[in-house]
């Protein structure tokens, strides 16, 4: 048995040493960042870029959804929670009971574009028309009712593409376009991901869908959206999301546990600086304020 132990122990020691060898004894601050899947790709890009800015700070990014981030904030296990929705009053109360005071930062905007097939000639849509197309009890079911005829769409029937009902995008579109109490029309194709919506619309001449602007491709068109009949028609773009003129753009939040200090403060300051905001722009989302990038 002793012989065996003598053989095993160096093997274990070697393995541990090989893995722990990287440490040079420097004190590194770790920032725990968890939450929204919408923000995940941006948060990852930030963490990657920040490693080059400050090598003494390691940002650990994890997804799971806005709810995951918020409950981790309530339990006090994260430094920064990502969320694509505002924290509810009740959630903030819970956090306070645990001695955590969440502080809100708007770090960018996500414009929800309405997507149609590239052959679809429609130029503009009003919010009322969108409600008629998507809302329960809405009467618009044919493209002819919107004054267009779509080449390749022989039935002329509007094919609705939507999202699964636990998606933040689904909830936001419902609240903003359909109204608080309204429901979606039945019979839509509910996709499990922002990218899937655009993929389906790309291949279906009759289809209409909604998804984040970041997922736009060259093979779909995005009609401009008018708030009221006869009003200004606004193109979905980063610029119109920043200025607030595009009606279906939602803020993206980061919550810190208490007023940020030390490494967390430097990180948040960097995210809200021009450098940080150019990263979110590059990922196809809108900066929280007008930003000039190279």
């Amino acid at each position, binding site marked *: 048995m002793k012989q065996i132990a003598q053989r095993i122990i160096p093997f274990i020691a070697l393995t541990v040493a090989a893995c722990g060898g990287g440490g040079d004894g420097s004190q590194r601050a770790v920032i725990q960042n968890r939450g929204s899947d919408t923000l995940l790709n941006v948060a990852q890009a930030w963490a990657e870029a920040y490693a080059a800015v400050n090598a003494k700070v390691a940002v650990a990014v994890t997804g799971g959804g806005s709810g995951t981030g918020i409950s981790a904030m309530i339990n006090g*296990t994260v430094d920064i929670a990502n969320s694509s929705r505002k924290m509810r009053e009740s959630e903030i109360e819970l956090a306070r009971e645990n001695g955590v005071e969440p502080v809100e930062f708007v770090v960018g905007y996500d414009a929800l574009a309405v997507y149609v097939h590239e052959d679809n000639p429609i130029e503009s849509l009003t919010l009322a028309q969108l409600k008629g197309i998507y809302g329960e009890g809405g009467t618009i079911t044919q493209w002819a009712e919107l004054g267009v005829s779509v080449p390749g769409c022989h039935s002329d029937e509007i094919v609705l593409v939507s999202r699964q009902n636990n998606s933040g995008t689904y909830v936001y579109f419902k609240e903003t376009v359909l109204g608080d109490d309204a429901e979606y029309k039945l019979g839509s194709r509910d996709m499990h991901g922002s990218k899937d919506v655009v993929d389906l619309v790309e291949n279906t001449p009759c289809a209409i869908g909604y998804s984040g602007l970041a*997922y736009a491709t060259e093979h779909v068109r995005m009609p401009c959206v008018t708030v009221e009949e006869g009003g200004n028609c606004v193109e979905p773009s980063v610029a119109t999301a920043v200025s607030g003129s595009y009606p279906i753009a939602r803020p993206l939040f980061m919550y810190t546990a208490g007023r940020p200090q030390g490494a967390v403060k430097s990180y948040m300051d960097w995210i809200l600086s021009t450098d940080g905001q150019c990263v979110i722009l590059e990922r196809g989302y809108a900066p929280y304020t007008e930003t000039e990038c190279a």
Partner: protein
Amino acid sequence: MFAATRLNRRSYRNQSVARAVFCLMTVALVIPVLLIVGTLVVKGGPAISWEFLFTPPRDNMTAGGILPALVGTVWLVVVALLASVPLGIAAALYLSEYAPDNLLTRTINLAIINLAGVPSIVHALFGVGAFVLFFRFGASILAASLTLAIMTLPVVIVATRESLQAVPQAFREACLNMGATRWQTIRKVVLPNSVSGILTGVILEVSRTAGETAPIMFTGATAFVAFLPESVFDQTMAMSYHLYYTATQATDVPEELTFGVALVLIGMVLLMNAVSIGFRVYLRGLKKW
């Protein structure tokens, strides 16, 4: 004289058919394995290079390598082994060598079997409640590894107990007859003769630990961190979670990169297994019967 009757011929024919069917089923078992490995090698093979293995990801996961995930998985596996192997072997020793067959022992045995049947997502949530929140380890390698250790503990216990019981009773009696105590018997006779079986349990545990995603998702694995872990209280990337992330969450990831991650994960498990199996064969050579 013996001549085959119709009955004989029919039985013989039935037997051939049965053999063919069972042979076909056995081959069918191998097909998925070959398909999986084949697909991974063909689609992920081009991605594999020294750079892929030894650099961190770049450009929002669309380029670069997998070093932090690779190192993270090794950390998770080693820490999980350090926790579960001593505990599992000690428990198996007690159950096999010392424990009387009474209600308590039977209850413990039942608990071990049940522990093995608990779904990994339940272990994950247990890990969050116990290690992350209650013991205040936070999301860390320690919390993730302990969760994995608890999940794989039954494998170690069962494998160890089986191999202890495979040591002939006569060996123990011979030793005890020489005046040795029970502990001396275990240390000098039982353990050396069962170590190859115990290692089999450890092999199985390593494979399972490296591949699991659910138990580490909430307890310590992270989608991205630019640095290698320095202590058990750091969060880390891991191969299984990295595969999930690149396949479903990140945009514009080249397909070969995702397949490359899967290929390395499978390769890693196979390599760990091969090392342990080699070690086991060597130890079995030292066996006295």
